[in-house]
């Protein structure tokens, strides 16, 4: 494709997008803003989980298809801890739990989830993936698929298939209304939590010794090894952090309307997100997450009229295929130079 044609297509697409946005705002600005805000807030959770995914890929080159099940496991662990702590704090009368004990129980449960996620991540890496280093990409993908079957089966055995909820509710169901836009409290808090956690993860990479060694390993494994960075340690840490991120993602999603197997759909949404941002780019994951979140909600709000049915679920994938035709390495992915 010639460069000029490419520029033309891009600018036409951009113009169309601007036109559609302006029109949407003009027709019903409240609906538009509502979709936008919900999209950004959901997108922040996608971004958090995508961060974990990118980390594994960056450090060990594993394409992880088990991310959805990891979010599920994390969410359920948090739910179990939460109900257990609530029952300790207030005894049997769970319905009358006070606000402070709810907050404490939730925060403690979240910390417990992070610890459990770290341990599970380390164990998974050690048991299943350590041996697969250097195997063909497809075999490694299939191992993660096997992991996802295994975790799915275990989740169903332990926690059953029906929807379970955080009861008493951690976040009130009453929405906060800002400029006529109703925002659920749970969304707002999820957004804040996701932002805080992302900030913590990013500063971990930038400023701590372990984070730096992970970066070094991702950049050039041989050089990092010769400088005394332990690759095994880095792989294990990457899996641990991915499990932690997924666990928090699952918890936040579970707080919105409850937990069931459909939460693991998050694991698939993560794929368009990382493709959009570029497989090995941390800022790409964050931008991609929020973009896909907005895109999904906009598609649900506007496109449903023209294509009734599950447009919301597949819009990210369609977008991804089209996007790949134009930018095969995502926004900030590393372009691979191939030689014979």
């Amino acid at each position, binding site marked *: 494709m010639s460069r000029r044609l490419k520029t033309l297509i891009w600018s036409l697409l951009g113009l169309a997008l601007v036109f559609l946005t302006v029109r949407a705002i003009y027709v019903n600005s409240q609906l538009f803003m509502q979709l936008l805000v919900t999209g950004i807030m959901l997108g922040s959770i996608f971004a958090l989980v995508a961060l974990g995914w990118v980390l594994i890929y960056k450090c060990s080159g594993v394409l992880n298809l088990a991310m959805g099940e990891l979010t599920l496991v994390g969410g359920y662990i948090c739910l179990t801890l939460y109900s257990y702590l609530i029952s300790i704090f207030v005894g049997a009368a769970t319905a009358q739990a006070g606000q402070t004990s709810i907050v404490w129980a939730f925060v403690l449960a979240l910390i417990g989830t992070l610890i459990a996620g770290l341990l599970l991540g380390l164990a998974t890496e050690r048991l299943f993936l350590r041996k697969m280093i250097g195997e063909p990409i*497809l075999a490694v993908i299939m191992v993660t698929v096997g992991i996802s079957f*295994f975790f799915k089966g275990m989740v169903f055995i332990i926690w*059953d298939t029906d929807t379970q909820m955080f009861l008493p509710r951690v976040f009130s169901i009453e929405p906060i209304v800002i400029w006529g836009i109703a925002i659920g409290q749970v969304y707002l808090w999820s957004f804040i939590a996701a932002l805080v956690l992302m900030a913590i993860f990013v500063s971990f990479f930038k400023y701590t010794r372990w984070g730096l060694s992970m970066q070094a390993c991702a950049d050039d494994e041989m050089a990092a090894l010769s400088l005394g960075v332990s690759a095994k340690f880095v792989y294990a840490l990457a899996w641990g952090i991915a499990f932690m991120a997924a666990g928090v993602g699952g918890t936040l999603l579970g707080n919105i309307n409850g937990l069931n197997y459909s939460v693991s759909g998050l694991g698939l949404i993560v794929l368009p997100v990382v493709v959009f941002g570029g497989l090995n780019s941390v800022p790409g994951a964050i931008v991609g997450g929020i973009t896909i979140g907005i895109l999904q909600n906009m598609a649900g709000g506007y496109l449903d009229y023209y294509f009734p*049915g599950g447009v919301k679920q597949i819009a990210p994938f369609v977008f*991804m295929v089209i996007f*790949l035709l134009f930018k095969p390495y995502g926004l900030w992915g590393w372009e691979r130079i191939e030689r014979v």
Partner: protein
Amino acid sequence: MSYLPCGTYFESYKADQQWWRTPFIKSKMILMIIVTVFLFPLLSERYDSQWLSVAYTINYYVLAALGVQLLIGYCGQITLGHAAFVAVGGYCSAMMMLFVPWPQFLLDAGLAYPISIVVSAILAGIWSVLFGLPSARVKGFYLIMTTMAAQWITVPFVITQYVSQIGGRGQSFSLPPGLIKILWWEIDTDIRIYYLSIFLVAICILIMGNLLRSKIGRAWIAIRDNDIAAETMGVNIVGYKLLAFFVAGCFAGVAGSFYISALYAVSPEHYEWFYSLLWVGIILIGGVGSIQGIFFGSAFVVLVFKFLEMGVLFINDQLVEHYPALAYMTTKVIFFREAAFGLAIIFFLMYEPNGLSYRYWQLKNYFNLWPFSYTGKGH
């Protein structure tokens, strides 16, 4: 297909290129044909016909995994959305049987279903090419993503939301009994379904095997081994990649339209993403780049599932019978199957990364030169 002892003794090119080159292989294959076509089905029908349904399920997986093997094993294009093309085949065939006003003489002659198989194979091939188009530009993980998108766009969206709403609401089409007829045979009993499956597998394997021995097959293998090198040698890689997608889609279409004869119904749940993954798992278990491997992998997967299911049913019955208080556990037993299957895949790939066909090759080598065998390294 075969490994000869040192030295070849053929006198003509034709003899060298034959499918069955030695009398031993010939008699082995004839024995196999006798077993699959006469012995097994007749015995199985006599004693326990559930093994017939196991057998045709294996054949269905072989048909479906054939295309996956072609794409991954011979052309190097990783696909994780093959169930989409099987779905297109299945739906196309079912809808043709249900909604096309066939002329009476075609129905009487029992040609409607065979025609629908051909049409659905072509349609599935075209659909597959559509999603193979990005392969011109992307490869590796990004290609995996587009094939996965094929799955997500085709099955939960196009088929569930639109195609299955044709002719009134409803997700599943149920075919009236007696609709599927080939010539004068109604495909209604297990044994007939089994024979149909054997017939289709034989044809598809023949096509695939011969394609691989031709110019086309060599081009695919060149692309798999190094696509840039192949391009510099003058191979039209985009064309051959798309051809591979087309042929793989055709096999998938045949598989899909075969399986509606087994179930007499078609619904989106036959084509979940799980199956796409399963078929890739089959070729990994069987061995990448080997036609026999597809059989090994399919048989392994179907039999493991069958035994797990028998175990689950047994435990289920025992619980209900002897420990009624634990009967609520029966809802959980089924998930052990899922978890166990996941573990089986993981451990298989960890400890047998070359697949079953490699073991088979080793075994054959061992006996070929027995008692003077040496453990040769494979590929």
